[in-house]
């Protein structure tokens, strides 16, 4: 595996200015994604995974605001680039994203094939005729049967699983270096989930691109990812290789997550006590401390620093500082 860092998020802070107050959604997130790796970002709903994804493409809009931080892509800070440059150079070309509800993510009044062709025409130089042909080739690549038919249909005429493949075809059409997949299989039938993930993995490996897979499902992560980051309430609490995280979780939250996955021999469901905090008024210090069995006085006062435990395995917890 190549060790070169493709994307680095440094100290990202994002707030949402809402009617209820200021939601401190992202609290200083640090993350590295390497070239050619399948990186999983895990966490419960509302922990900030999707917001982070939007930030990478600088698509955080009102009422959200990126307050500070850098997002370095191949060494250049995306957040300091102007909009035109991001739009022309990064979006659709270098970094793309697929999302949770594929049918909703497609324009209902445009044919499927034309939507893929649009991505091609925007991001690569080719003629309209060639783009249409290429769109059908891409549909074949994602294992869609009768690609000509699907290309001439509209999004409401195809199933969720097929729509997600269309999205994948669209988002891989310009051969990006990084594909962000935000809960791509959560809304699909379980049987389709595995197919789509396998397809994704195969395509990415062929192109030697990176994937940032966002999910709340640990089993998906275990199946597909090389490295994993665990997020809680706007913080990244642990990052490591997938077997490190699964077999030797360090952070109390990660341990809770692993424990909570129902396994065949377990007799009871073990949850994590307490509730996800309201980010308008988050807990001081370490945001997990109200639910943590190991909470100490310092956890309530200061934010823990990130410590590297072993190669590529980092934790953000006072237990290890």
């Amino acid at each position, binding site marked *: 595996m190549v060790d070169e860092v493709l994307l680095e998020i440094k100290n990202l802070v994002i707030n949402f200015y809402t009617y209820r107050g200021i939601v401190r959604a992202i609290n200083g997130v640090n993350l590295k994604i390497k070239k050619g790796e399948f990186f999983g970002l895990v966490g419960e709903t509302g922990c900030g995974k999707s917001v982070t994804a939007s930030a990478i493409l600088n*698509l955080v809009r009102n009422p959200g605001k990126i307050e500070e931080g850098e997002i370095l892509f191949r060494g250049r800070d995306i957040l300091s680039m102007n909009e035109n440059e991001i739009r022309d150079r990064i*979006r*659709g070309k270098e970094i793309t*994203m697929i999302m949770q509800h594929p049918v*909703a993510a*497609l324009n*209902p*009044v*445009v044919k499927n094939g034309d939507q893929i062709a649009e991505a091609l025409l925007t991001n690569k130089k080719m003629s309209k005729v060639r783009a249409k042909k290429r769109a059908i080739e891409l549909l074949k690549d994602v294992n869609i049967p009768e690609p000509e038919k699907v290309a001439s249909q509209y999004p409401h005429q195809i199933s969720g699983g097929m729509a997600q493949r269309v999205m994948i075809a669209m988002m891989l059409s310009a051969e990006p270096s990084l594909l962000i997949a935000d809960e791509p299989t959560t809304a699909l039938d379980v049987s389709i989930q595995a197919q789509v993930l396998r397809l994704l993995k195969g395509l990415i490996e062929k192109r030697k691109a990176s994937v940032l897979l966002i999910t709340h499902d640990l089993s998906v992560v275990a199946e597909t990812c090389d490295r994993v980051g665990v997020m809680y309430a706007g913080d990244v609490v642990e990052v490591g290789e997938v077997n490190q995280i699964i077999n030797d979780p360090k952070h109390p939250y990660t341990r809770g997550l692993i424990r909570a996955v129902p396994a065949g021999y377990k007799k009871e469901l073990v949850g994590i006590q307490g509730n996800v905090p309201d980010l308008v008024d988050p807990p001081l210090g370490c945001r997990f401390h109200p639910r943590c069995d190991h909470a100490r006085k310092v956890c309530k006062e200061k934010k823990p620093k990130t410590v590297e435990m072993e190669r590529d395995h980092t934790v953000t917890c006072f237990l290890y500082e």
Partner: protein
Amino acid sequence: MAFPGYVAKRLVLFIVVIFGVVTITFFLSHVIPADPVGAIIGENAPQELVEKIEKQLGLDLPLHQQYLRYMKGIVHWDFGISLRTQKQVSADLKTYFPATLELIILAMLIAATCGIGIGILSAVKRNKLPDSISRILSLIGISMPAFWLGLLFIMILYYHLGIIPAGGRLSPGVLSPPTVTGLYTLDSLIAGEFGTFWDAFHHLLGPALVLGWIQTAYICRVTRSSMLEVLNEEYIRTARIKGLRERIVILRHAFRNAAIPVITMVGISFGYLLEGSVLTETVFGYPGLGRYSVNSFLSLDLNAVIGSVTLIAICYALSNLIADLFYGFLDPRIRY
């Protein structure tokens, strides 16, 4: 197979509605306290004459036979003679309807272009100054009583600024162009009479601006809210992720979808404009179908009432039908 079914259902509905409209008009006309015989021969005519006229008008027949006579008349587009104008009602309608049509078309052009344009701008620049101004103005627009706005326009544009003329379709002394469509502006252009064109256009301005302003407000609001709803959809995000320019995102992705309810609104607007023409033509003294129908009501001119109401209701139902069909055609989710 969905679309033909959709069309068929709408057409059947249309026919049922027209039938119902005509029937209701019949019953209404029998409730209106008019004295059709007395209107023809005066109130003190001798009894035999009264009975003779009654027989002629078919008033001595039982109700259901009168109804059949009435329906037969309608199918042949024969409403009898207007007491006020002493002409065939159908001839009156032929004279006045094109005038209203011309007015409505002009008002529609104004309303559609301004309304859609301002609506899109408002949605894109949400909550900023242009949006706030347009929202307040369009709220005022739909709250405005049309007859009052008309009077204001007359006072300001006619009396103080002299921009619009006194009334009617053409100035006294100007001859109407040779009839092709009945629309003076179009006909004068076809005949090459540019002076007449300007005069006709001039006379249309006042009422068209009043109707146009109010309708712009409606269309602007629908466009704005439709755009806002669409701009929050997932596929807009997809379009941005693909790296498309903002203008393409707004026009090709957002508006293409927002347009569906907007175009439906535009279709329905024809009906609203027809309704608005009633008050506006009266205020401006514009000789169209609206003013004709008001005068018919006020003078209890039964035949004219039936004729104008039937025509208006048919146009209204037709514009709703066309709007519905358009909606079905534009939305692939219905078409396929």
